[in-house]
């Protein structure tokens, strides 16, 4: 499905972040060869020590780097400088608490008499979730496209988000989805027509 490939979804545009607009918190790429993707590269060529020149170069490189930021942020080896030991401990704790608290949401299907409950945490992405829904409720969901939603399917997966709005499953990045989804509803295709156009 289209949304499996991150770069089709334009994650950057929909990403919620705090901070001054226009600042890219991008990280240099993993290669440790001198200045691959590191902002300092342009400054390095400038042997002239004039400080203002350095500074304006820094700003220039910052701006131009923003355009070339790769959609997925690669991590720099050994940065921030946290001991592997501490890193591993914190990872372990995070996994523990992640595993401990699932994200359980009610799932309903139009026409079905009973609700079900699902733990969204066990799925790695939309394709797994939809497969699970199909298995659970014995239906087939159509192909998803950003523009037309689930065109041509009898049933359409939707969800209610934190603000109480009903959204089409697949519209937002997966991480955002599982943190904002309050409940799922598998609607009849005819009823869902309006949702595909929701912004």
């Amino acid at each position, binding site marked *: 499905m289209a949304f499996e490939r991150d770069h089709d979804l334009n994650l950057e545009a929909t990403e919620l972040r705090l901070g001054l607009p226009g600042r890219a918190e991008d990280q240099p790429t993993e290669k440790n060869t001198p200045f691959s993707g590191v902002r300092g*590269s342009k400054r390095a060529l400038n042997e002239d020590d004039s400080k203002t020149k350095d500074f304006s170069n820094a700003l220039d490189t910052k701006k131009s780097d923003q355009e070339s930021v790769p959609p997925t942020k690669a991590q720099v080896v050994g940065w921030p400088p946290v001991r592997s030991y501490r890193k591993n401990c914190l990872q372990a704790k995070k996994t523990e608490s992640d595993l401990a608290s699932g994200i359980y949401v009610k799932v309903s299907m139009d026409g079905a008499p009973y609700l079900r409950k699902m733990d969204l945490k066990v799925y790695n992405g939309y394709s797994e979730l939809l497969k699970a829904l199909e298995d659970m409720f014995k239906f087939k969901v159509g192909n998803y496209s950003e523009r037309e939603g689930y065109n041509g399917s009898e049933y359409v997966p939707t969800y209610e988000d934190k603000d109480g709005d009903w959204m089409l499953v697949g519209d937002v990045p997966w991480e955002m989805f599982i943190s904002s989804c309050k409940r799922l509803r598998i609607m009849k295709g005819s009823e869902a027509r309006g949702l595909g156009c929701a912004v």
Partner: protein
Amino acid sequence: MSSKRKKESPESDGSTRASNFPDEVLERVLGPVKSHKDRSSVSLVCKDWYNAERWSRTHVFIGNCYSVSPEIVTRRFPNIRSVTLKGKPRFSDFNLVPPNWGADIQNWLVLFATKYPCLEELRLKRMTVTDESLEFLALSFPNFKALSLLSCDGFSTDGLAAIATHCKNLVELDIQENDIDDKSGGWLSCFPETFTSLEILNFANLNSDVNFDFLERLISTFSQDLTANQCSELESAFNNCKNLRTLSGLWEATALFLPVLYPACSNLTFLNLSYAALQSSELAKLLAHCPNLRRLWVLDTVEDKGLEAVGLNCPLLEELRVFPADPFDNEIIHGVTESGFVAVSYGCRRLHYVLYFCRQMTNAAVATVVQNCPDFTHFRLCIMTPHQPDYLTDEPMDEAFGAVVKTCTKLQRLAVSGLLTDLTFEYIGKYAKNLETLSVAFAGSSDWGMRCVLDGCPKLRKLEIRDCPFGNAALLSGLGKYESMRSLWMSACKVTMNACRLLARQMPRLNVEVMKDEESDDSQADKVYVYRSVSGPRRDAPPFVLTL
């Protein structure tokens, strides 16, 4: 028990002595001199003093295990009872050094077993220690009292079991932040039932089966230091710990559990909460009971509010370390900011050691902090996104570190971060006259920056640099300086193999080692490690370490 030195004839050195001061008396006089720097000075006075010093020395500190060989050490110092050894370059803590690089303790232990059978203490940092070595240690030194392993690797809990089983006189066991293969299996219970000598037990974060009855018995005899893994089960023990001075571990510290600690906190001077994800209110409530705190380690989950509580409750605080709970997640914006830092500085005027991980900082805030706390000796600021400017003014962070070096004249250790130009390094070279250790990452504009530091900091001993635009000219400008330093590390800079070869050729008493990255071209020296040594190039270098 110490080796006896042979009587030397009065005129053996060919000169007329001003006084026939008996050797033994001089040795006795020098006995209380403990600091290794003082002892170094003593040994340089004259031959008599050199000899008296070497015979009377009981503790040796070796800051770089490759700077000297075990043979040279044991030949010079016959009566050593305590050894401190440091191995790998510090950036190995952050995965910049491949495994099997070296710094193995085994050869040292083998020689110590013959030359120092009375060895009592061994403190290792960033060394490779195998289970076989630990067992060898436990069996070879009947008087062994204290073992400290910090950031070491190569061993498992089996090795610890050998220590617990065979070291009958163990007083201190300090195992921290090591890369241990945790096989559980209850190594702790290898301590004999009747064991009472242990006073310091520190083994944070092993998942081993901890026999809490045993721990409780141990704890009731502790007067000074305690750390434990799952303190939640030591509730009753804490009521007996009125003299507790340090406390760490605390993995499972929850709001429900913390009040259990309160009775034990009034004399607490060191509190390590850096593995407990506390919120600001929990920390505030705890700190209200810790008025004597001198050193505090926390996670940034406490946020600025938590740090405000630090400023309010801990006027005697000297050291603060704030670690990041989510260092690799750029999308989470919480943690601490410049305002928490400033809040602490207003309340804790005696602060002299700070390690601060944050996602935003301003020049003005840092200037305020050092104005409030001018006595910093260790200032380590880590703005976690590389090249990040002052988030309010968008300027480089040069003025922040300028303020630090201008105001804190006693500064010994500095770690810089954020967007920095050569100006930062000009400031450092000009003002940081007591600086001994400098860590630089993603900073500077040109060779000039590094040259300023090499020229301007007379006491510089350790310089570690990564991902900076410093090249051959900078490297070679330090030719005359590196022998007065312990080591230089440069990785992902602009240094070439030829420059390294030139350095190695010109300075035979330096070891110049290069490690190349997989995809780099032949001329680049990706990772360079330069250090002085009296024992020549390493003989145990693995194939990926090129000795030039």
